[in-house]
């Protein structure tokens, strides 16, 4: 087993009396797609927010390639190589698609500006299937295209680790097939992905391993087929009677 790219140890965050993430530990290996699963409210998005620096943890550590990143502001973490998409899609609405991607290019790990940046932006838009739409303002795009745009913006940061927060949610069957193929192609490029996902078909076909959370804590970890058959996982999703 290779050393993890991302190591999360004892990560904890409470909101008032509610412990949203409770002593969560797991690792993401280089080049793998790790699924972070769990019923609604189990703390998946909070965990992503803690990793990306949107929130600071109350306790615990997040290390990227052995370097402590928890506690750093989000922009530092982004520059060190963790990029993300958002559960509720957040394009920069009044800016063009090209400018949206430039936003990812201009300040990231492998930053580019001017002519080279424009070329890379076009290439990234083409990669996610938005070729030729660079001049359109982001707000006129369809929902699925806004999701593609967000992915292109995240990839523009040349991330070591990509966090996808329910990137496949809300897509129709055709879009879903294309979306899965797109994430699959990211893996082919050797990218490392941590994805929060509810679409089980996608989890089965994409993820190398899964971590399942319930009530803020990890309840299972392993290959998708294994964890999805786990009694405790089924209990968490469906209740005790079906387990």
């Amino acid at each position: 087993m290779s050393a993890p790219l991302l190591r999360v140890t004892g990560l904890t965050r409470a909101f008032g009396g509610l412990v949203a993430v409770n002593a969560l530990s797991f690792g993401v290996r280089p080049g793998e797609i790790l699924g972070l699963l769990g019923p609604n409210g189990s703390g998946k998005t909070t965990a992503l927010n803690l990793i990306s620096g949107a929130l600071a943890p109350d306790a615990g550590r997040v290390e990227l390639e052995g370097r402590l990143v928890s506690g750093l502001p989000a922009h530092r973490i982004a520059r060190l190589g963790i990029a993300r998409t958002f559960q509720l899609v957040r394009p920069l609405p009044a800016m063009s698609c090209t400018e949206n991607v430039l936003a990812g290019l201009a300040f990231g790990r492998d930053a580019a500006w001017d002519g080279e940046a424009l070329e890379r932006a076009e290439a990234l838009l083409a990669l996610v299937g938005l070729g030729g739409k660079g001049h359109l303002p982001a707000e006129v795009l369809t929902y699925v295209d806004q999701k593609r745009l967000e992915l292109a913006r995240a990839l523009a940061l040349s991330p070591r680790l990509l966090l996808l927060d329910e990137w496949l949610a809300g897509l129709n069957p055709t879009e879903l097939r294309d979306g899965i193929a797109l994430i699959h192609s990211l893996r082919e490029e050797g990218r490392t992905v941590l994805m929060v996902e509810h679409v089980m078909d996608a989890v089965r076909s994409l993820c190398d391993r899964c971590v399942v959370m319930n009530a803020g804590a990890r309840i299972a970890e392993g290959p998708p087929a294994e964890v999805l058959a786990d009694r405790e996982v089924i209990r968490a999703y469906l209740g005790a009677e079906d387990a």
Partner: protein
Amino acid sequence: MSRNALIFALLVLAALSAVPWLDSGFWLALSINIAQYAVLATAWAVFSGPTRYVSLATAAFFGIGAYTVAVLGEALPWPAVLAAAGVIGVLVSLLVGFATLRLSGVYFVVFTFGLAELIRQLVTWFEVNVTRTIGRYVFLDITQAQIYWQLLGLFGLLLILGTWLRASRLGFALRVIGEDEMVARHVGIDTARAKIALFALSALFMILTGAVMAPRWTYLDPAIAFNPTTSFQVLIMALLGGVHALLGPLLGVVPMALLFEVLSANFPNHFSILLGAVFMLVVYAVPRGVIGLLARTQRRRVA
């Protein structure tokens, strides 16, 4: 603004510098007034336009500039006075920037409004308790024409900086912040630093405007220097013109400065009420500014 547009604008400014030779009375006074608001409103929009942070601190910075001249004007040579005003003002703006980092929306507005009042009260307290004189005379050997030329120079400098900024990474960062600050942080933008840098730059021009204008009054007290109406007038001018283009605010400054002139000459006792009415009218009728109206008619013509 493109490079050609900038050069054209600078040539127009150079031509306008002839005004004092044509008339040294009413028209020069009016030109000074317009030039003053042109710098203030454009400086305001340089920060507030892209970030969408509505600042009411204009009066605070303008006042710092003016009051520095009132205190130091006779003690130091003029360039040193301007430099001192600039340094003091930028330090204050950095301080305010750090303090207001985490404020957004209405909290920022209220804080900046309070700032002008706070500084006015502090200066008043200091003058009453320490120097024991409230109000100062500004007798400097600076003519109206010189005031006007300095304002034109400031405006030209601001246009050059603004043009550079729009094409720069910092300017782009501010637009991203204005669109979505959360996203800005997650694409690696140090939002705090970008906002503070621009806030200080914008403040510097307001401070220098206040300093340049100070000799015009001959008598200054904190209530004149830190008059909160300045903040509102500048805000409404910038909004009327449009804050998303560098020359947008100017389109609001010219008609508004003329209107304020007419209003304060004819209805001196009802000026504030009328100002409020104008404010509401602008926000309801031209929410995207004159620039927005122009862009819309242009689009219609194309379609």
